[in-house]
């Protein structure tokens, strides 16, 4: 545990002493809840359609594959045509693209970003590295199977997949969402213990609460 995360007494500028417990004060400890589809089927279908047509991606590149996402914003490929936009904050994003290899250090950040996103949320694994480690199969500090740590909805294979492949992948993701099959957030909440066990097995300096919001 890092020193700045330990419980301590702080003296304020007005001389009042108060106790600070970073892990409790900075995070919400409520475990994730399952949010099943609650509305009538026709409403849920409308929402699913809207979700599929308005995919907001968290602009967080975790590996070399992030370079393939940039051309999608530019005139050559222009993903905005398909209702795909980038949001800089996990709160507003619906889709986390794990772009390529994920080192253990980055996995920690990816987990925190994922947990701050709101239900429903989707994960797309980009490139071979997220499936079986790819060219990093024998690396000591990258994870091999993304699915063990976060609920993946879709993989886009290749090393690297071209932007066209990404666009095709997003179209497939849209079909999954429209069919109501992209329930990764609920899956994560249901199998929370299993995911946490897997995450803690590789992340040795675990200095955050089990659930980040």
């Amino acid at each position, binding site marked *: 545990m890092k020193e700045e995360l330990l419980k301590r007494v702080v003296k304020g500028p007005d001389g009042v002493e108060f106790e600070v417990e970073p892990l409790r004060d900075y995070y919400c400890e409520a475990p994730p*809840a399952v949010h099943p589809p609650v509305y009538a089927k026709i409403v849920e279908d409308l929402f699913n359609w809207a979700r599929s047509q308005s995919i907001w991606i968290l602009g967080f590149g975790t590996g070399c594959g992030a370079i393939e996402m940039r051309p999608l914003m530019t005139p050559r490929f222009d993903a*905005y045509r398909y209702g795909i936009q980038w*949001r800089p904050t996990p*709160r507003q994003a619906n889709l986390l693209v794990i772009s390529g290899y994920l080192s253990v250090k980055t996995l920690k950040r990816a987990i925190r970003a994922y947990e701050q996103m*709101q239900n429903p949320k989707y994960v797309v694994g980009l490139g071979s590295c997220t499936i079986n480690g790819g060219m990093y199969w024998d690396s000591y500090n990258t994870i091999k199977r993304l699915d063990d740590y976060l609920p993946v909805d879709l993989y886009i294979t290749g090393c690297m997949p071209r932007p066209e492949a990404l666009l095709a992948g997003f179209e497939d993701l849209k079909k999954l969402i429209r069919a109501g099959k992209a329930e990764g957030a609920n899956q994560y909440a249901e199998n929370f213990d299993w995911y946490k066990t897997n995450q803690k097995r590789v992340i040795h300096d675990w200095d955050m609460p089990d659930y980040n919001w």
Partner: protein
Amino acid sequence: MTFDWMKIPYALLTLFIVFNFGLLLTAFIAKIGARAGRRHGIPIWQNYIDLIKNYGQRSSITHGVMFYLGPVFRLTGGVGLLLFVPTIYGSEMFSNLSFAGDLILALYFVFFGTLGMALGAGESGHPHAAIGITRGLAQVTAAELPLALAVFAVALQYQTLSVTEIVAAQQGGMMNWTMFTNPLAVAAAMLAFLGSMMRPPFDVVLAPQEIPIGPPTEYHSAYLALMQTNRAIFPIAKIVIYMNLFFGGATSWPEFAVKVFLIYLFSAFVGVCFPRFRVEQSIRWFLIWAVPLGVLSILWV
């Protein structure tokens, strides 16, 4: 004095029309901006889909009471602004709830949403939100100065604080518009307009490429949807004020649509032509270029 209850459904109808017009116009302007960058841009109905999606998010978290109230205040600012100025001049249906001193109230409502947002985003506790709010309030305040001066100039010129009477004084031909009778005030106000539309060069407050992404960093789901609703209504409401004060108002919905589009296009045009200012640059720019124009416009009258 009796109150005509029929005004309420009429005002709601105005709100409905302006809301849909705002959603489409915002997307259309975004498309124009995208075409300037040689992209196709979002589909014209994208704003509707985004709204449905955000209202349909299943989970949301809160940071406290003000966090709830922030978007509510913001929406109140937009709706209030729209409801208290006449949208269509001379129309019984779309004059809304305008009254004798509505110009002062309108000036207040322009600022109201920003203040509410400051409280709400401040409570979210996110450092990016705090920085964004600081920048936003500084910039909007600087942009508000020339607008206030221009509005005072117009009020002095027509000797009234009623938007309806100001529009009435501008009827009877283009040359009666404030744009030609008091060009300095209009110039100052249009420069201020750039600063309050959150487009480049004055969009450092919530540009995704800067501190991501300023005040709404923590806002999501239905909160964000409320703010998006406001982003459809508020710019149109503000443009209605400008149209009424400076460009002769509108006597029919088609005239309204054309004038609002052209005024909106002005900020989009400047936006695609010029790079982004930092906050201290934009404040200096407003104080050097816009405020003296505003002072001159008062002296002119």
